[in-house]
């Protein structure tokens, strides 16, 4: 597979992950919006609207973090990086991505325990008594995909830097 194909394949994988997370943002917003309307105009509420909202929020954040990590759009201090030359920038990027990989891997391992303990404790939602662990499991899969994607990014940074895309602008932190 040539570089262009590899890049376009990776882009479609990331776009799908990001799009999935973005879809959850829309669902959470719709859940809240409809809940408020129903409460004020019809004095009824969506069963488990509150629990669905917060659990979907968890899923979207972990899936979003996966895409953010691959794209390199986390909030960073760019003072030294911005002043450095291309070699220094690449070295810093590799170091930062390795640290990221380590942290997210440890996080994923600990989160697996959390999913297991939630399953064992049989925690359920408030109204419909649905088990909570599947939501946590989906969130955890997002974290697993973050590990895979960061590993790919690390490999690309070391061996094929031309495959690593540029930063996408986020307006976090303003």
């Amino acid at each position, binding site marked *: 597979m040539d570089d262009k194909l590899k890049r376009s394949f990776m882009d479609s994988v990331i776009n799908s992950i*990001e*799009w999935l*997370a*973005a*879809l*959850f*943002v*829309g669902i*959470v*917003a*719709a*859940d*809240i*919006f409809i809940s*408020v309307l129903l409460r004020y105009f019809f004095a009824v509420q969506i069963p488990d609207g*509150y629990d669905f*909202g*917060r*659990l979907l*929020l*968890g899923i*979207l*954040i*972990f899936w*979003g*973090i996966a*895409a*953010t990590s691959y*794209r390199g*759009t*986390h*909030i*960073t*201090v*760019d*003072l*030294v990086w911005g002043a450095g030359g291309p070699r220094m920038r690449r070295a*810093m990027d590799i*170091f*930062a991505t390795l*640290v*990221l990989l*380590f*942290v*997210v891997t*440890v*996080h994923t391992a*600990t*989160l697996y*325990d*959390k999913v297991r303990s939630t399953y064992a404790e049989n925690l359920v939602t408030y109204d419909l008594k649905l088990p909570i662990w599947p939501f*946590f499991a989906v*969130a955890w899969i997002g974290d697993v995909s973050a590990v895979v994607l960061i590993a790919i990014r690390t490999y690309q940074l070391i061996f094929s830097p031309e495959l690593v895309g540029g930063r*996408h*602008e*986020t*307006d*976090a*932190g*303003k």
Partner: protein
Amino acid sequence: MVLSTNTVAITGFVVLFALMLLRVPVGMAMGLVGVTGYSYLTGAEPALKLVALTSMRTVTDYTFGVIPMFLLMGAFVSKSGVSRELFRAANTLVGHLKGGLGIATIVACGGFAAICGSSVATAATFSTVAYPEMRRYGYPQAFSTGVIAAGGTLGAMLPPSTVLAVYGIITQQDIGKLFIAGIIPGILAMSMYVTTIAVIVMVRPGLLPAGTASSWTERRQALRDVWAPLLLFAFVIGGLYGGLFTPTEAGGVGAGGAFILGVLRRRLTRGDIREALLQATRTAAAVFTVLIGALLFGYFLTITQTPQKLTEFLTGLGLGRYWVLTLIMLMYIALGCLMDAMAMIILTVPIIFPVITSLGFDPIWFGVIIVMTVELGLIHPPVGMNVFVIKSVVKNVSFTTIFKGVIPFVITDLLRLTILISFPIIAIYLPGRMG
């Protein structure tokens, strides 16, 4: 060899700063140092348990949903082209005055920032909307870019402000009250920026020429385009103030409302909707990563008793509370040279906040003060995030030119900060009357 808690705390901070300077994401660096330090002092098992517990609790906390919801509302509004309509409306009203285009930029920035909540997004948007217009009428580059950089900072003050929401989460203050607390200081900021432009016109009458006068029909038409988004903003913030919604619900209603308005007014295409959802997701993921890291780092701070020790140290200096406050703000202004607003708030507030409360300052008021101070960092050298954003949009302008244009507004900001410290009631009047 067993290190004392003081040594561990100092080592932790040194490693944290080193990691951040090496461009490790702020949230990851804070999480790593926090958990490593905590595990050194208490053992690995409890530290690792904290990791999953904290992250899962943070991302599934309904209250924290306020961040993605308001981000989504802002993204829908941005994509609907409201910035251009706001500028046009303000321009028809004041564009015929000397400096009028500058005033229109400030007013439109305020209106846009109030809905979108992001300083950088505001600066980036108005670099494309207002800058060409100001240049067309012969406004100098320095002023044109400076006024946009300053106008952009209104995003962090006027509700809904992402930075104030994060401050509220970290300090466990009522986010709704914090949003409302930003209203009068935000309006004060706009008024003072407008006054600054008027002073510039008085001192150098030929610098900012008058634009074309608009007819009343044109004015009515322009205002007709902006009433809907402004009504949505008033409804969302009014509902928050009146206790109709929680902050998260207000965000959800705002996002839903912005979506419906955009679709009904045919301003949102399928591509725009997709882009808005993606933009909100990316930013929310980045903010939540830092939040999780900050909360993990918070455990480390607690176990090393860093905030208590700093409080004892600062109150033991015998300087008086306003001098301690001045020291803290100077530190923020200095830090503003190194990092952006969100990173600064998340890193320092857990340490500084106990000092502030022990000195008897109001936490809501301090939220406004601290956000205003870090916002200064968005426009002062050498980092000045808004300046970088403007530079990335307006290619043929130098950093020096933008920073020159920003100077009058930085002076105004310092004056405003002094006013707010002298009269805290400006910030705490409205939250004190909330339902």
